[in-house]
């Protein structure tokens, strides 16, 4: 069916970097990364995941796209262009829908599942919001049994639960705007943590329960998975930029980019490993010797507060006991050893760094949690592309398991999408 090679592009407009990945899907559906274009965002153009300065972002994005196109020696296919969307405006809710199982045998079939999922995604959201993505949680049979794949089971009533992520329409379109400016009109927005989940989580983790935390420069997102479904998620507009800002305010050194750089290079941690009690920082008036304890304290307070906020938000869902595989930490924050330690201490579970998995292709320098999300977006895009192009029956006859549809472009036939939806 796919005779020609398919070019897929993933774009991330982050607080610290703009990253463009170009990938190629073989006819067998195998994905390899062709090229990687990245530019550092000018300081202050993106803050807390929100674009502040559209002109500078557009300029930087243009450079990143150019770099990626140059090294891939190909042009971006604008019909397969995916953009990661984040921001504190994003909310999640749980939708539920049910169908009465009809037919003589009362056996649940695919049509029942589609219908139940369709009902589950018909939720009321505030008028200025749009549904960004939805992931189904699981099915419940007769209100008694929770099950991930109910096909063939005998039941009277089938309930479906979907985790629906929605956000402010204008904020979402703000992410698409720089691409539109550059002539790519049909970018497809995807919630960035859904991409990260595709990029860094293994099937085993998704099945047995895991808490994925993506701590970027401007914003931290989390989502709890169990039984291959999402159960809780949230966005907190605190990232490593806040650590840098806290240090800058707390130490009276008005040089935010210096602290950003020190965080990226892990200067504080390596100094501590070397056993030095003071860290010398070039301040406004000469070099200052600052106690390592002070710096550690500032970082500790900020990060601990962040994870405690996530913990308290998750405690209301009563899903925390289900994270058998612990925490996967991705994004730039995962590179800070202190952040990993505190996450483990707050949640009392093991913590793993989420590097991109199943990475193949010419580009090798992507094996870092910094690229977990954008690589996942590429993978997610490839699956989404297959759904969009594969017609009535899913690739390799795979069953409807999971939906992930976008209501953003109204032209999509929603039913067809559900029928061909995928599993994480």
């Amino acid at each position: 069916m796919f005779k020609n090679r398919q070019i897929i592009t993933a774009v991330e407009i982050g607080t610290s970097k703009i990253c463009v990945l170009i990938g190629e899907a073989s006819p067998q559906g195998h994905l390899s990364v062709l090229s990687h274009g990245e530019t550092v965002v000018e300081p202050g153009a993106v803050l807390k995941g929100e674009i502040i300065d559209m002109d500078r972002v557009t300029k930087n994005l243009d450079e990143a796209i150019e770099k990626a196109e140059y090294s891939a020696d190909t042009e971006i296919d604008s019909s397969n262009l995916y953009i990661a969307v984040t921001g504190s405006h994003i909310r999640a809710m749980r939708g539920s829908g049910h169908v009465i199982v009809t037919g003589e045998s009362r056996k649940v079939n695919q049509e029942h599942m589609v219908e139940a999922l369709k009902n589950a995604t018909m939720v009321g959201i505030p008028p200025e919001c749009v549904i960004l993505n939805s992931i189904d949680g699981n099915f419940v049979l007769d209100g008694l049994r929770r099950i991930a794949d109910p096909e063939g089971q005998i039941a009277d009533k089938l309930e479906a639960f979907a985790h629906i992520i929605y956000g402010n329409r204008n904020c979402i379109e703000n992410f698409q705007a720089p691409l539109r400016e550059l002539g790519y009109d049909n970018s497809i927005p995807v919630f960035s943590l859904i991409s990260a989940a595709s990029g860094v989580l293994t099937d085993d983790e998704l099945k047995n329960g895991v808490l994925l935390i993506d701590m970027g420069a401007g914003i931290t997102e989390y989502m709890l998975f169990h039984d291959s479904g999402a159960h809780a998620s949230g966005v907190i507009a605190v990232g490593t930029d806040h650590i840098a800002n806290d240090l800058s305010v707390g130490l009276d050194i008005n040089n935010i980019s210096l602290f950003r750089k020190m965080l990226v290079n892990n200067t504080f941690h390596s100094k501590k490993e070397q056993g030095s009690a003071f860290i010398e920082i070039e301040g406004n008036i000469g070099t200052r010797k600052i106690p390592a304890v002070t710096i550690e304290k500032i970082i500790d307070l900020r990060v601990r507060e962040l994870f405690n906020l996530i913990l308290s938000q998750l405690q209301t869902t009563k899903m925390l006991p289900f994270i058998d595989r612990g925490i996967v930490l991705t994004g730039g924050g995962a590179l800070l050893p202190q952040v990993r330690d505190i996450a483990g201490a707050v949640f009392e579970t093991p913590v793993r760094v989420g590097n991109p998995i199943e990475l193949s292709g010419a580009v090798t320098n992507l094996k870092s949690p910094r690229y977990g999300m954008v690589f996942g977006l590429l993978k997610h895009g490839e699956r989404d592309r297959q759904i969009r192009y594969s017609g009535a029956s899913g690739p390799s006859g795979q069953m409807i398991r999971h939906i992930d549809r976008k209501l953003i472009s109204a032209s999509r036939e929603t039913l067809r999408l559900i029928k061909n939806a995928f599993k994480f």
Partner: protein
Amino acid sequence: MAEETTDILAKATVLGLGSAGTKVMKELSLIGASSWLTIGAADTDKSSLDNSGLANTFPIGFEWTQGTGCGGNVIKGERAFAHPSRNVINDFIKESSLLIVAGGLGGGTATAGCSSIARTSRKLGIPSVFIVTLPFSFEGHSKRELADGGIKMLLPDADIVIAIPNDILYSSMPAHTPAEEAFRKSDIEIARAIMGIAEIIRCRNLLSADLSDFKNVLQKRKSVCCIGLGTAQRSEGENFCHAALERLMSSPLLGGPDSLKDIDAAILTLTGGPELNIGEVRHSLEAVQRYIGSEVRLIVGANTDPLYTGFVQITLVSVRYEFMPEIPSSEEKGELQDFTEQPSSDQPELPLLPVSKGIFANTSRNIVASQDLDIPTFLRQGVHLDKGK
């Protein structure tokens, strides 16, 4: 006329008082779906009644004002309403199940007339709703005092008083709006609010909400209430309910969607043609519910009417209590109530100490669990730091 087509139970009478009220009635009569309402206007000024083009007009006290109006004199207005000529108004309202009165306070006729009509309707046992506008701030202090006095006189007898400052009506329009259009638009806005409130008493056939619900919510005095209304044509496409909601949220009288976040109660009514289906009802009502949060006391009514064929109208009356009077339980009655602890809200700390947000100084607010996360944690927790040398 309307009486023949609609249920006698739901006969709503709308009366405009004074020249401002008459203008609102004129606009109301031009709205297509208003034909079930009985509309009338009363004024001491002959020319305003003549220009209205309404079927029921009641000249008041023409015998001794010679039809020239009260000229802002409340005593004159009171005299006019004491005159035998006002009996026609009593006849006009006596068979209705709801009386809605609109007028602009601060002049003579409406300021005096509202309280007079309120007394009559109380005597006749007709529930009454008063939608009155308050004068512009630039019209001066004396007019404002007149209007305040009018409201004080009105409150004991009226069931519901909704006072709308004129300043609000115009604050939502761009400054370059032609003056004539601006005044007309504000009249239309009030007329639409009247439509929305009148709709409440008819919500019997799908989901019931009625005037007693409305009274119940507003009974705590000192509540501030806003009205929003949105309509959309079915021909606007599949999302027409959403379009109606969006218009509702941008209604000038509602004060924007942000104002819905801190309300205490809301009355929501949805009216559509007979073709309205349950999915549409559910979808739009759920959307509003999510908008205003779960702690708000919400009263929902839905209704269908052949007059609304092809379009849908959503009305939201939001109520915010100025203070929360705890109703004491029977044992505690008479004892002094302690101030209950305020529920946690999205309000940041008062900036009593100069705190630095650094690079986040001019970004969107970041309040989670009453904490401004953009302020460094050590500052908020008051941790002392050794800054070195």
